[in-house]
């Protein structure tokens, strides 16, 4: 069943939509949650919450890609679960490492509510990614979107661990410069 058919089921409020989504993208979402939470039980719980969130969001939303939509929800829920402490002491090592690395880009101060134009910031991030070679863009997203480990990236991209680390460091420096040029007070 393709994305459009599944989305139509959502709009028809047919509960088979959830089964179809789980069948199509269950493994994808589970892998994202598992990488973030590093706990199978918590990841399954997170994936189930993802289907519920999809049920609540569609409609009114009509995603272009149901895979991306579900994956994003699974990622956000897994990160929220991690922050909420439900998965404390149960992994999440890659998230913490990714956060440490991203600390190089931002100052670390709290942003006042409403002070950040999220749409503009998202556009700036898209602009940054659009300016990268495909390989570097994929590397950046595998690390900070999918939260892959450096070792996994090295194998995946046929690079050495040092090459991955060095490339990511340079990409973070580029991101910081790009965001500052876009006028964001980091």
């Amino acid at each position, binding site marked *: 069943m393709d994305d459009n058919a599944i989305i139509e089921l959502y709009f028809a409020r047919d509960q088979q939509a959830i089964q179809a989504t789980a069948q199509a993208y269950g493994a*994808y979402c589970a892998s994202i949650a598992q990488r973030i939470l590093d706990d199978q039980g918590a990841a399954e719980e997170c994936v189930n919450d993802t289907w519920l969130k999809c049920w609540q969001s569609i409609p009114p939303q009509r995603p*272009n*890609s149901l*895979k*991306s*939509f579900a*994956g*994003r929800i699974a*990622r*956000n829920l897994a*990160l929220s679960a991690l*922050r909420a402490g439900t998965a404390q002491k149960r992994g999440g090592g890659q*998230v913490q490492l*990714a*956060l*440490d690395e*991203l*600390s190089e*880009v*931002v*100052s*670390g*101060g*709290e*942003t006042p509510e409403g002070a*950040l134009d*999220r749409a503009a*910031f*998202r556009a700036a*991030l*898209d602009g940054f*990614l*659009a300016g990268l070679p*495909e*390989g570097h*863009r*994929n590397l950046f*997203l*595998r690390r*900070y*979107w*999918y939260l892959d480990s450096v070792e996994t990236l090295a194998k*995946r*991209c*046929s690079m050495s661990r040092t090459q991955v680390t060095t490339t990511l460091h340079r990409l973070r420096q580029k991101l910081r410069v790009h965001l500052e040029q876009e006028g*964001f*007070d*980091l």
Partner: protein
Amino acid sequence: MNNHELLNMIGEVNEDYVLAAGGDVVRPRFRWRTIAACAACAVLALGVYPAYQAVHPHLHDYVVMEGGGILDTQEEEKVPQGAAIDVPGQGGEKGGEDIDGTHLGEGDIPVDAEAAGQYDRLLRGMGIHAEGTDAYPDWFAGAWIDHGGAPGAPAWLTVAIVEGFRTSELETEILGWTQNSVVFRDAKYSKNFLDGLMDSVVAGIDGTGLSCGIGVDVVENCVGVDLYSNGAVIPDSVLAELARLDPDGDAIRVRLFTGKLDTLTDELQKGPEPVEPEARSAPAVTGDDEPTATPVDGSGPVYHGEDVPADVVPGGACADDLPQSKEEDRLARYDLLPLDE
């Protein structure tokens, strides 16, 4: 902004990028340039040396016997000096008669009858009844009767066995054949191999016009090649061919006898070859006594042997113009043995 907010915002980037990054594992790029560079290096490594070898072939080492030696022109084949005669009965004796009744000349050593009998029984034991057969066993590297260098001294049979074949069982078998004690010696090359190599050497030198003596030296376990330069330079092609036949450099022993061969007296003479007016140009002496090459017509001075001026050589060239001879080039590399060795 803190890192948590940035991580969240990264989660909202263009989904196309996210989906693209979530695709299949990135395959390593095929590094054409690396492969091409390696291939080029391999071609260079594999091709340059053979090309160099083709231009500068490896030449077989040789020993210069300064002043020459004796070439017996009465025989078709000259046994190299120092080589043992591996067939009993062919050696002569000093005075008197050999065991086969032939008269022995001065300097000949009589063959010990017992040792000769041992040799004969050895051949029979190996299944060889006629001289010249090439059906020697693979372990057989030759056999000879050793007199110890003293005429009249007891002689004994020495049997050379190819390395790797020598076992106590084989020695016992040989002793059974010879019915007496023999001396065993290890050797690298079999008699069959040396005989085949000798044929190849003969074929390689054939047609070069060189005077030479070729034979199997079983004592030294090699093919002995004596080249008589006869006043000329041994062509590199001959030495290259010998090097090709003997890549290890120990299966062929090359000795170069310098000087001119006098076929009338079978002796080699030192010094330059006399100039024959009919055969070559001779230097003509001008008013300034400067030699120039002119055709010989009987009107110009002709030099013979020691009469030629020191700075004039046959052919009309000045000594100063002579290129460095090959022999001189190699003096540092080869042993110089005395004439009367």
